[in-house]
């Protein structure tokens, strides 16, 4: 569009200022920013819900919320955070922004489809918000039947439709990434030279395309049962409620990997940059993503050890769950080994990343407890499970997301944030997180069931600590948000490659990138993460 190379060159942010130029854009970078804004709003809605019910849980009796309100809040927290934040965060924002830039492409393979994905995501979000404004939904984010299909007296249809619609956004984005990564890599960028972020996005996209349709079918059946009176899950009509659980977890367990694998990709990039080392065992880290994606499809039954599924089926699910732990352990060992004899700089993204490794490690190890059949019988549906998946989802995925957001923030907006406050935010979030969720392991081990509005007083100390910790974490998140947003207005220009990182996005594209990404032809002649290459250390 603009072949004019005199300064200041137009970049993707300045090329068009109207609302229409944003809402009808097919530029993958602008779509990434649209996702960023929408997702931050959803995140704040989910976090508000958490704040309210954390206040309620500080004491053992009901003195802030009524039981129905409490049930609706934790359901809303789960639905919003899982389907509108965790699943689309890294693919939607960082994936959209970075996949073409990292592989040297002008855009994704299907730019219009990419914009359609964002609109589908928003439409699903609007249905879900309508359900919330209309009075909420009280089934838990898992929509277990026959409660959701027959008994619940809340907006299951609206919320279910919202999640159903949003699923298509994941499927289409996944499809887009698979084609883009296969067909649009720059000359010389072979598979084994790809950044690990791309490997992670690729694995995630495969799960999205294969798994999400099953969730869509499942939700459609629940809606059919609720609206038309089908008897698929309702035992009164000869249906089987446990069938629902099989179908739901067939998607929703792989969905855990949809959430966490992109985070693995972010961590690999940040770790390499701030230790100036190639990721140790690159091939193992790359293929472990694929291994996790594959085995992850066969472990869903570990959510159902006490559901009355066959105990022999349970054995298979148990052993496969341990096997999925092996590639995950490999990743952790390799990340740790990457630091060895490196040049480690504890910048804000690096602090988030190291925090990620520690918290994800605890999340993974406590997963072993839950995979153990005998232990699961006690721990299932207690706060132990709640703590476990928050260590994976928040301690793992959210820390990785914040690491990635800080790391690529200069690339996205061309500005440097205040490093001191960013580090303060990272440290407060790390400690606040542990303060919030560690006590929940003990409450669960003591036998406190989850989703309890009032509870026995013996669990109160843990819940009080948890509520106090949540406020610390909230303060950390506010510092993080203010630091990042204010940098857009007051930050110093970052230059092309402020972290002196490898990768096409840092070395071939300006910050913020040009509308068409690259103004010079891209050709790759080195392996990924070659931090001995002097070219990356030259100033932009």
């Amino acid at each position, binding site marked *: 569009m603009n072949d004019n190379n005199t300064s200041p060159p137009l970049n993707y942010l300045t090329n068009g200022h109207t609302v229409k130029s944003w809402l009808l854009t097919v530029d993958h970078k602008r779509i990434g920013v649209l996702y960023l804004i929408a997702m931050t709003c959803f995140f704040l809605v989910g976090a508000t819900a958490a704040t309210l019910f954390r206040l309620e849980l500080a004491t053992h009796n009901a003195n802030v919320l009524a*039981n*129905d309100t409490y*049930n609706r809040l934790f359901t809303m927290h789960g639905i919003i955070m899982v389907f509108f934040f965790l699943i689309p965060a890294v693919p939607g924002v960082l994936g959209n922004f970075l996949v073409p830039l990292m592989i040297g492409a002008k855009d994704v393979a299907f730019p219009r489809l990419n914009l359609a994905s964002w609109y589908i995501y928003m439409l699903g979000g609007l249905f879900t918000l309508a359900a919330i404004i209309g009075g909420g939904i*009280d089934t*838990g984010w898992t929509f*277990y039947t026959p*409660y959701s299909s027959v008994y*619940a007296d809340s907006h299951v249809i609206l919320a279910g439709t919202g999640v159903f619609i949003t699923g298509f956004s994941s499927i289409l984005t996944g499809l887009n990434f698979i084609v883009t990564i296969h067909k649009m890599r720059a000359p010389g960028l072979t598979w084994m030279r790809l950044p690990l972020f791309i490997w992670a996005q690729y694995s995630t996209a495969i799960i999205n395309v294969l798994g999400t349709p099953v969730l869509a079918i499942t939700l459609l059946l629940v809606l059919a049962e609720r609206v038309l009176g089908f008897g698929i899950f309702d*035992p009164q009509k000869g249906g089987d*409620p446990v069938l629902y659980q099989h179908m739901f977890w067939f998607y929703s367990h792989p969905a855990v990997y949809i959430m966490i694998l992109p985070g693995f990709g972010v961590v690999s990039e940040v770790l390499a940059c701030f*230790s*100036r*080392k*190639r990721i140790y*065992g690159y091939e193992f880290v790359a293929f472990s993503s694929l291994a996790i994606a594959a085995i992850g499809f066969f472990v869903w039954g570990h959510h159902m050890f*006490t*559901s*009355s599924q066959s*105990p022999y089926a349970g054995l298979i699910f*148990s052993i496969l769950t*341990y096997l999925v*732990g*092996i590639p995950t*352990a*490999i990743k*952790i*060992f*390799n990340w*740790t080994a990457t*630091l*060895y*004899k*490196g*040049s*480690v*700089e504890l910048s804000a993204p690096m602090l988030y990343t*190291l925090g990620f*490794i*520690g918290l994800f*490690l605890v999340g993974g*190890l*406590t997963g*072993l407890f839950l995979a153990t*059949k*005998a232990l*699961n*019988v006690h721990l*299932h*549906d*207690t706060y132990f499970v709640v703590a476990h998946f928050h260590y994976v989802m928040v301690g793992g995925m959210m820390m990785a997301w914040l690491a990635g957001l800080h790391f690529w923030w200069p690339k996205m907006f061309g500005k440097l944030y205040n490093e001191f406050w960013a580090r303060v935010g990272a440290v407060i979030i790390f400690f606040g997180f542990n303060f919030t969720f560690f006590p929940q392991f003990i409450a669960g*081990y*003591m*036998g406190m*069931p989850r989703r*309890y*509005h*009032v509870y*026995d007083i013996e669990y109160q*100390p843990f819940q009080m600590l948890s509520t106090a910790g949540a406020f610390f974490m909230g303060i950390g998140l506010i510092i993080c948000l203010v630091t990042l947003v204010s940098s857009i207005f007051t930050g110093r220009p970052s230059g092309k490659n402020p972290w002196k990182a490898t990768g096409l996005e840092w070395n071939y594209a300006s910050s913020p990138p040009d509308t068409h990404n690259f103004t010079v032809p891209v050709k790759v002649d080195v392996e990924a993460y070659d*931090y001995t290459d002097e070219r990356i250390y030259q100033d932009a």
Partner: protein
Amino acid sequence: MNFFAIKTSPIAASEFAREWDKLWAYLMAVSVFFTVAICGVIIFFAIRYRRRSDADRPAPTKDGKLLEILGSVIPFILVMIMFFWGAKLYFDARIPPKDAIEILVTGKQWMWKMQHPNGKREINDLHVPVGVPIKLTMTSEDVIHSFYLPDFRKKMDVLPGKYTQMWFLPEKEGRFHLFCAEYCGTEHSLMIGSLYVVSQAEYERWLSTGMTSGSVVAASSEDPVAAGQALWEVHCMAACHTGRPGAIGPNIHHAFGTMRELETGEFILMDENYVRNSMINPNDDIAKGYPAAMNSFRGTLNNNQMNQIIAYLKSVGEGAQ
């Protein structure tokens, strides 16, 4: 509040709970070791190899296979120990002993209904004698619930339209938590109760009078076996199912707990779920050599009546093969 006086581990109220705690300790040891080791190494590396100058250019490390091999094999061995130990503990404690007292549990939004072998009922509380294995046969009248005894480390989902079982062996007298662990709606957190483990004598007294020190009086009492026998007669089940000449159904009168051959050639165990499903969906499992002629009792028999018929069939099933 004195934070040093806070309990941080649950009571272990049975042999199973103590075995459970040993397995828990093994996993804790593995977890603490890896958490400390990896976090320690990361902190050490972050300090030892900190960037001293922007001109630092660390030499690349050669990827070795040793880390990948050790990093797969050692965790693999450790988790396989977890797997086998966990599976063994689970399977050893799966089948209830033959001499267990059987109590019927029905979950309903938002209460637990218990029925003792002599028909005595109670709500949300469960009285059991110490030292005798207790088998719970459970079903739900509405949504999915889950019967959870944290001090015994036992939990089992309670489903509508199906029976599930769990059992435990109380070892000491006292009062223990009973929770619903599967989210079941508005008052899920109030679907709780107490398990009272009492002495044998006190249990006998409670069964006959409904009184123990400090418990509620139970609602009603009827003998489920007698009630089941009455239903068996009233609904003419005897005509079809007792092996009389010309009967159109298989003889199930003395068959509870045996394997039944089906038209498809498969064998199926005649247990609670089989009997119940045959009453509701009689054409699901057709017995070998008999026509699919039975009508469904759905809507005719309620949950409680089906339980009574099962209780009757169980009572006469003993010893007859």
